[in-house]
């Protein structure tokens, strides 16, 4: 499940922010905002994707780098949301 979430999140980022250029795909620990991959409106878009794809709800207070700052933290954050397990991703 973790591998699949990571793959889907990475694909979303590459498709939407890097013009599909897989050679620039961020590594697990790359800082998505600091390294200029995602900007302030991009984060809203990312949240919408996570909510829609994984059936989770993300509150304003959860919109922090600890949860959304890297591919790795994004994957862990999605995993921690119980509804994902119910979805059987």
């Amino acid at each position: 499940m973790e591998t699949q979430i990571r793959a889907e999140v990475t694909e979303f980022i590459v498709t939407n922010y890097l013009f599909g250029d897989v050679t620039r795909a961020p590594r697990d620990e790359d800082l998505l905002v600091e390294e200029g991959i995602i900007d302030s409106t991009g984060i809203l878009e990312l949240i919408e994707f996570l909510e829609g794809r994984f059936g989770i709800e993300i509150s304003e207070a959860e919109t922090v780098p600890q949860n959304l700052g890297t591919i790795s933290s994004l994957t862990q954050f999605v995993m921690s949301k119980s509804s994902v397990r119910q979805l059987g991703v």
Partner: protein
Amino acid sequence: MPHCANTSDYLLAEAAPDDVALVEAGRRYTYRELRAAAGKLAAELAALDLPVGSRVGVLGPNSFFWVAAYLAVMKLSHVAVPFSDRLTPDDVGRNAGLVGCAAVLADQRVLRTFEAAFGAGVGVLTDQALRSGREPYWPDAGTVDAGADAVLMFTSGTTSRPKAVRVTHGNIQANTESIITFLELRSDDRVLVILPFFYCYGASLLHTHLRRGGRVVLCNSFAFPETSLDLLEREKCTVLAGVPSSFQLLLRASTFARRALPSLRLIQQAGGKLPPVLIEELLAAVPEARLFVMYGQTEATARLSYLPPDRLQDKSGSIGKGIPGVELRVLAESGEPVAAGERGEIYATGANISPGYYDDAEGSVAKFTPYGLRTGDLAVVDGDGYIFIVDRRDDFIKSWGHRISSQEVEAAALRMEQLVSAAVIGVPDDEAGEAVTLFVTARPGAMVSPDEVLAVCRRHLPKYMVPRSVLVLGALPLNSSGKVAKRRLREMAAAGAAAR
């Protein structure tokens, strides 16, 4: 031309050496450290032996290094050219070529991306030069020709190719003095800077707070508004400055409105019109803070007008009047001032107005006219002299013979509190001429359908202004200074039409 202080000396003249100048990622730098760092970079740059007045790029996110580099370039009487680190390397390379950059001071974090942007003849220094073994070079304060270029600032280019605005030493100092005066900035102010310094509004925050000897708190992660608010709280910031998209994000996608932010005494809003409903939300969110709505342009160094906080209610929607030292006039096509209530275009005069674009005589003549700076903004003036912008000259939509202000349609849509942002364009249409097309984004978690948005528009707009179509997007395309890139929306609309 009269002479004035060198702008780097001017900016550092008033501060107490041991006061904190900058906060970056939890690290504090005093004015003494800033001057020493700028001196190191100036020494390294002087070793390149460039002729006075050379254009020297500054590239990177807002940082201690960025500020030291900017000061070093001007101190040597070179011309600082701030580059956006959000452009592609090709665009940065083109801009560097446009102004004939001789050298660049670049942040190592972005140099990997942009290395190819600079030709072989361009000298590149990085933040490694801060550890230079050279003696800091910082000669005693001297004077410069007030009309000499200090900075070349690129316009953000929402509609056309960017232009390099010449900003002189005299321009910067005039605008800085004026802003400090009307905002009543203090040496104990701490400003949270979420805007990039390569944007004139961001640069003006740097200029004014350094000149006042205040503290500049850098925040490069505004994509996470909660983290930015934590920083604001932790650093007890007294001043917050943003563009409409910043406040839309804070009010509708963060806990800003629910937080107590007792340190915050001053909020600055510029860079486009914030719809009245969001101004009301902002006032309600931080009732103790004074809110200054302002208007400006890169060609005017930064600011041109402000609305005093005590007039926000009775002059709602106005950009106010000219700031001290600036005269704004609303002129008819004939060049005569319009009568109260009639529409004209805003022209500006003052010591902060740039002498023109770099190496673009034709473009300069169109913008810098005998009547003053032609702003491109259409406005009306009321009986008390308060100016109300109706729209950009280029942003009007002509539909079914009506002239429709995109701002009014956007403001109506944003009455719907599930929305974060709205942008309207005219899409070429055989019958209507242009069809009103509205793009919106919803706040996280909110489900919004185009029909619901249309229903709100119908309630608040005359029939001819109601959008033909509404598209709900995940995000609006923004340019590097946070303004909606309407050109890209037009491209999207055109691509959509072609697909059908």
